[in-house]
């Protein structure tokens, strides 16, 4: 019995593999022909092989449940998502452009604040931001790079274009799963993989290593690089260990490090203290250093900020980088790109209305039934309004809140996330919504992953892609749509 692909109907929006007429998209033709040649049982065999591989490779994420930390097997759908290579190249250029501008912006905020003086971004937004760190004023990290590793969340709307939904400039995670997804699909789809020229993703750890090494304050051939993890109970511990291993870096916890009177960072080794040059930290700002931030943090290293400010250690990402990824700043990113680079953004934002602006506010208020309203100020805690699903009364309540405190709100167009065929049961393929998180590196040079981590909302109709809430993932293939010879 083969799968009835004719029964596959994408929901209203854009499907990644199959166009509106039901025909395969050019880059996905060979993949779909292959999948259609398999019986339901053959496809299921591959699904089970993937599950076995995931368990054996120990690809897990940690969830905290009923007082216990449990390692769950990583959820993976074997049908890859295919993106046309030409389209991807344009997108990648846009991601580089965006991170360049954001780093210039952060560097400016902690130094001259030209952009505030010129009135492009309102000063009050920065001064009242929960993520602006006065402790970082006057620091100039190498190459002006504050966010060295950025995870940008992209979604595809009905028109098939990529839009930026969110910038993650602090400690974005997921790249190890991108790499493992590829390793798994090479194992279980080896027959089709061979005949396709899927662009490789494997060079990410080497690129990350080079990015980190270039930040070393000491000019060494082999700078000492450490990955700082909160420990084995963190949900992303698998990734921390994976990256340390792939880069040949030390995987350290806060208690492995100390800052001495010379304001240098040392790790405790079998040979006594040894100097550390670069720390790829996977701990949030406020837990980094109990001397500078939360005094009750057990995860951090006392004196780390002192060492960083003195230029004796590089921190990636730099503290304070998060000032540029909160929801209200997001709305200004197109303007930020124009201001610093004098270029138009290559990858657009989701259409966003800043309620602080009178004209945009009026538009938002008049269209609340079509928009999503998000509180701009993180500590606001008012929650979101999903206009099309809300009652008249709820919309009215939000309208009043917006009028009372316009600076606290942005409104966005309601998106229809793209879908891709997903194996949901033996012999059953249905569309599921997905997003994409590419990773962008910046120090002396820039680098973008080929594709990224595709996350899938496994429940029918759901838009929630988080792995802790029933989300899954797919391998992402960047494929040229020219016919292979």
């Amino acid at each position, binding site marked *: 019995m083969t799968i009835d692909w004719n029964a596959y109907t994408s929901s209203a929006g854009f499907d990644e593999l199959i166009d509106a007429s039901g025909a395969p998209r050019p880059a996905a033709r060979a993949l779909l022909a292959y999948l259609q040649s398999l019986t339901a049982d053959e496809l299921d065999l591959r699904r089970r092989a993937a599950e076995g591989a995931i368990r*054996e*490779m120990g690809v897990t994420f940690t969830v905290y449940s009923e007082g216990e930390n449990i390692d769950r097997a990583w959820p993976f759908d074997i049908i890859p998502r295919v993106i046309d290579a030409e389209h991807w190249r344009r997108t990648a250029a846009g991601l580089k452009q965006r991170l360049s501008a954001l780093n210039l912006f952060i560097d400016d905020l902690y130094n001259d604040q030209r952009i505030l003086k010129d009135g492009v971004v309102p000063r009050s937004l920065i001064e009242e931001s929960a993520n602006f760190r006065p402790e970082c004023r006057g620091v100039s990290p190498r190459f002006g790079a504050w966010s060295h590793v950025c995870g940008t969340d992209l979604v595809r709307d009905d028109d098939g274009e990529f839009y930026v939904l969110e910038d993650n400039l602090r400690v974005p995670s997921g790249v190890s799963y991108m790499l493992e997804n590829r390793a798994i699909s090479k194992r279980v789809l080896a027959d089709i993989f061979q005949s396709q020229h899927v662009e490789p993703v494997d060079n990410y750890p080497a690129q990350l290593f080079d990015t980190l090494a270039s930040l070393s304050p000491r000019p060494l051939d082999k700078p000492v690089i450490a990955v700082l993890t909160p420990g084995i109970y963190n949900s992303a511990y698998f990734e921390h260990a994976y990256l340390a291993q792939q880069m040949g870096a030390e995987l350290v916890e806060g208690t492995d490090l100390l800052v001495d009177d010379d304001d240098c960072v040392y790790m*405790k080794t*079998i040979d006594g203290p040894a100097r550390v040059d670069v720390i790829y930290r996977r701990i949030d700002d406020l837990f980094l250093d109990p001397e500078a931030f939360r005094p009750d943090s057990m995860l951090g290293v006392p004196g780390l900020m002192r060492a960083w400010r003195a230029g004796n250690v590089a921190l990636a990402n730099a503290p304070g980088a998060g000032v540029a990824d909160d929801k209200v700043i997001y709305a200004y990113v197109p303007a930020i790109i124009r201001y610093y680079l004098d270029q138009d953004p290559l990858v657009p934002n989701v259409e966003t209305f800043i309620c602080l602006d009178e004209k945009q506010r009026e538009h938002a208020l008049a269209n609340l039934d079509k928009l999503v309203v998000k509180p701009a100020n993180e500590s606001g805690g008012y929650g979101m309004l999903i206009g099309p699903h809300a009652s008249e009364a709820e919309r009215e309540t939000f309208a009043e809140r917006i009028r009372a405190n316009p600076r606290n709100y942005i409104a966005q167009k309601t998106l229809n996330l793209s879908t891709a065929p997903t194996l949901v049961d033996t012999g059953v393929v249905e569309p599921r919504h997905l997003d994409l998180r590419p990773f962008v590196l910046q120090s002396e040079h820039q680098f973008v992953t080929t594709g990224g981590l595709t996350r899938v909302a496994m429940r029918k109709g759901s838009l929630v892609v988080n792995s802790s809430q029933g989300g899954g993932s797919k391998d992402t293939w960047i494929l040229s749509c020219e016919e292979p010879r």
Partner: protein
Amino acid sequence: MLSRVAERVYWTGRYIERVENTARLVQVYAALLLDMPDDVRLGWYNLVALNGAEADFDARYTERDEASVVRFLIGDRDNPMSMVSSLAAVRENIRTTRDVVPAASWELANQLSLYVATHLEAGIQRRERQGFLDWIIGRCQHLNGLLIGTMCRDAAWEFMVLGRNLERADMTTRILDAGAVAVASLAEDEMAGSSRQIVWGSVLRSLDAAQSYRRTVRRAVKGHLVARFLLEDPHFPRTLNHCLNRMLHAASNLPRRGAIVDLLEAILNEGFDGIDYKQLGSEFRDVLNDLQIGLGRAHQQIQAVWFADQSA
């Protein structure tokens, strides 16, 4: 190398060894009991005593029979010395040192854990136990082979060697001790000679040493020859002499090694002096006890020199 990582790698070495030793010990002991005359009161409880775990066992088990002892030694997650607990410790230590051990060792540790999780209940029943334990012993050897074949010979390796050999040496003294106890419990009758031979043969097999013994000693299995072989032979990898020399070699490749090297050399130079192998009674057991104390000191030294918290 980080002190914390060094400590975990050391324990990985120890726990892999403990998993394999425990599995083999149960295998050999079951075979031994089948070969003993019916009137010999050699019970399964000796294995609990051999591990010094009487109090823990007695607190939670009422019967001292085969089923209880095997469950306690192999499948009891509340017994920190059981095979499953040791296996969990192997996995946890590899999981937290994945940057210094070969990637494939993590996959192998996962396979082992998965296999044990699905097969444990059937595997500790007498009917399937042999195959179950054989598989685990094989996988431990696979894991050790993988480490020997692919692990970088840096400091991490030396700590793995230290842990492995310390655990091995400790197990060898315990099994020799158990042999001495078993022989002492035999009645002096016409069966005694052959029973003693069976006991010492089992001692050799529980260390996988029978073949090497035959090739090296070239004599029938006798208690005094077996005891001397397992303590002093330089070539078989589970003798005290060999294990201590491996540890000495490993330590000499590490920084700040002075005290530990002195200690190991002292045991090697004086530990075997004047042992009367013809009398394997209480004096011999005192010698084994002294060796165990020496190994305990070595462990404390390793901990103090290389793993201790160096925070200011």
